[in-house]
């Protein structure tokens, strides 16, 4: 199985059900499809149903809510944090089809894949400390050689020579060993760390002792217990999360106040600069260009002509509710009738009009039934179709 950054694509999917976070998937009913190309790739479906998840390898990705396609290396890299996902997406290495918001949401549905911790203890490491652990007082009078035949990955052969209260270590097996320990590397590490009982190991045939059993039994006295090196724990960098929610209130003042009062009466008020004659809507106390009081309030519109449509695809948060806005939607800048040519009025376009409305089209406000003096007294503007 091809691995990238020591992780295979299978590793990611095989652990997905275990990494599922119920609290992150509340209300989600979706099928996430993954089409991973290249060595070690394949097709997977991840079905999230509110509080459950099912991950399956498949040939048929039909019926998905969103499909993510990437090469195996990119996919693994993004999942384990070695590759920046946004970067990969923007440069076209990840392609997303369907409901893109689900991809962002999936980050909340699963905890991040983390590499299984590898043991820091190696067979070589154990033998590197053997001489230091030698206890001469417990080896008085011994003149022996002890062989170790550690098999498999990470193994090797050593001979500890004990004579005159001294110990030396050779690589390789001497022919004249009093006893030879034959054991797989992984089992040997477990034995030394006390995770595997020697009697159990012998009984199961995982530890074979060739030669003098009695000497083998003395070994734990001749050599002090191996203390594994203290694992250098990578410091966890703690991130404190905060969600600030504050009630705010803003005074509107007499000028904006008059404008908001007008909205309640389904009227749009502008004010006029006595010097340059330009109209302002919403009205502002002064004309900032002429630096003078702009007092006269004049009713304008409510119909007008669109000067610019902005179709929004990026879902930004609504600052009033904190909710993500549904996209696409359109903002319109409108020259209201009677305003002159210098000041556009900013509002929203009715969603149903999005497809066939363009600059220059005539629009009219749709009033909210309940008007309180706010931007929402106008629901949106709609295209005039007569």
């Amino acid at each position, binding site marked *: 199985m091809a691995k990238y950054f020591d992780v295979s694509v299978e590793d990611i999917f095989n652990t997905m059900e275990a990494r599922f976070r119920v609290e992150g998937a509340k209300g989600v009913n979706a099928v996430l499809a993954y089409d991973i190309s290249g060595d070690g790739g394949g097709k997977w479906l991840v079905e999230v149903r509110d509080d459950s998840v099912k991950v399956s390898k498949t040939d048929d990705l039909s019926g998905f809510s969103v499909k993510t396609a990437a090469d195996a290396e990119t996919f693994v890299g993004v999942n384990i944090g070695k590759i920046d996902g946004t970067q990969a997406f923007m440069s076209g290495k990840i392609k997303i089809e369907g409901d893109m918001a689900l991809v962002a949401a999936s980050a909340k549905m699963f905890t991040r894949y983390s590499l299984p911790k590898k043991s820091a203890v190696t067979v070589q490491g154990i033998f590197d400390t053997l001489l230091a652990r030698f206890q001469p007082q417990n080896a008085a009078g011994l003149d022996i050689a002890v062989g170790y035949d550690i098999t498999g990955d990470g193994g090797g052969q050593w001979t500890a020579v004990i004579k005159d209260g001294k110990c030396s270590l050779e690589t390789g097996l001497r022919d004249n060993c009093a006893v030879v320990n034959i054991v797989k590397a992984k089992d040997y590490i477990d034995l030394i760390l006390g995770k595997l009982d020697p009697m159990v190991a012998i009984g199961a045939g995982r530890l074979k002792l060739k030669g003098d059993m009695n000497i083998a039994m003395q070994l734990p006295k001749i050599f002090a217990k191996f203390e594994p090196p203290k694992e250098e724990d990578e410091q966890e960098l703690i991130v404190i999360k905060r969600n600030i929610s504050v009630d705010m209130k803003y005074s509107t003042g007499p000028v904006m106040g008059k404008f908001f009062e007008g909205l309640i009466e389904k009227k749009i008020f502008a004010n006029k600069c006595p010097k340059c004659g330009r109209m302002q809507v919403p009205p502002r106390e002064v004309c900032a260009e002429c630096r003078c009081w702009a007092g006269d309030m004049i009713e304008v519109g409510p119909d007008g002509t669109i000067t610019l449509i*902005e179709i*929004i695809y990026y879902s930004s948060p609504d600052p009033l509710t904190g909710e993500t806005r549904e996209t696409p939607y359109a903002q319109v800048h409108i020259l209201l009738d009677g305003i002159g040519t210098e000041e*556009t009025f900013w509002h929203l376009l009715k969603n149903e009009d999005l497809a066939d409305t363009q600059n220059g089209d005539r629009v009219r406000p749709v009033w909210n039934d309940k008007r309180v003096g706010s931007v929402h007294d106008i629901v949106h503007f709609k295209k005039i179709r007569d």
Partner: protein
Amino acid sequence: MKKHKKNRNVAIIGIGQTHHSSHREDVNQPEMIHEAVELALKDAGIGIEDVDALVHGNMELFEMVHQPDLWHVIGTGGYGKACYRVTTGGTTGATIVGVGDNIVASGLHDIVMIIGFEKQQEGHTTGGITNMADPLWARNLQTGALTGATAAKTIKEFGEDRAKRAAMRLRVTLDKHAALNPHAHRSFGLDYDQIDDLMANSPQLVGELRLIHMCSQSDGAVAIILACEEKAKKISKKPVWIRDHVTVHREETFNMFGINENQEVTHHNAARKLFGRNGITNPREYFDVFEMYDPSSWWGLDWLREFLQLEGDEHLKMVENDEVSINGSFPLNPSGGVISTNPIGATAALRVAEAALQVRGDAGAHQIPREVKHALASGFGGTFWTVLFMLEKDLDWQEAE
């Protein structure tokens, strides 16, 4: 040569910037700032004890920390020193350099360190910018700094294909520049043969403003040390002189979309003033490099025209003919610009820092391949707020008058 009156000359004598990335979770705010401060002091060859005053800037609404300069004293070294705190939106980085320039030129302080930073991943940038709009009306409608208005305007004026192609060509050019800058937050390895694909397939944000056109959100900090002429000449082998800077401000302009296309925007106004009072009649010829605050490729394209006071389609031609590339006749953002690296409170200061590195010849792989004597750097924020700097290698402009 004409010059703008300045009480005394001011030079940039030290520059330090952090590694920029979307996630600097490895450090907290003061630690990140400290990286830049340390590098700037080392670059200047002085200690914090030599610094008389600090100017600190970012956007409070992005990280939601009020008066972060107090927390940051442990990273800035500001204990017991004069400290000014400035927050002017995207313009912040340029405004803090402007404040530094002013308080040194005035004679108030001899050596000043300016510090711009942002850790955008700690908050919500678009949410923060949206809260910048007036709460009575515009806030309910705004979508952060995203707008397709300039794209629409450019397409209307020059035709869809030419406009889109020019904006994307500029995008690719700046991505290539960013690839040369080891400090840049991101470079995608784009090439010109991807222009058609990106024009059609990069996800749309607003109208024809696409994801690939838009600047990043970065974490990072920059520190710049300014000194008066007397100190600069003693301390620095390569002082870069701030000849002049101008700042132009206006009321919100949410009310003129789609109309008033002939109204002078602040960039044009700022450049006109700066060039006028310094006797620069042909900025394209005078300046060897321009570090522009380019939040999107559409703006970068359009603003070439505004800043350089160009007519017709000259700005498009500059991009189409690769004049703006690092090897071209008028290199634009050899650092990769804002589009590649955007820790907002630092961003505009990075324009000045990068322009100064070009003047010193110390930009490294993104050094333009000829001598840089005169550099231009801009800042932008709000709906339209401009700061524009001109930097000089020599003090020779003084002699004429």
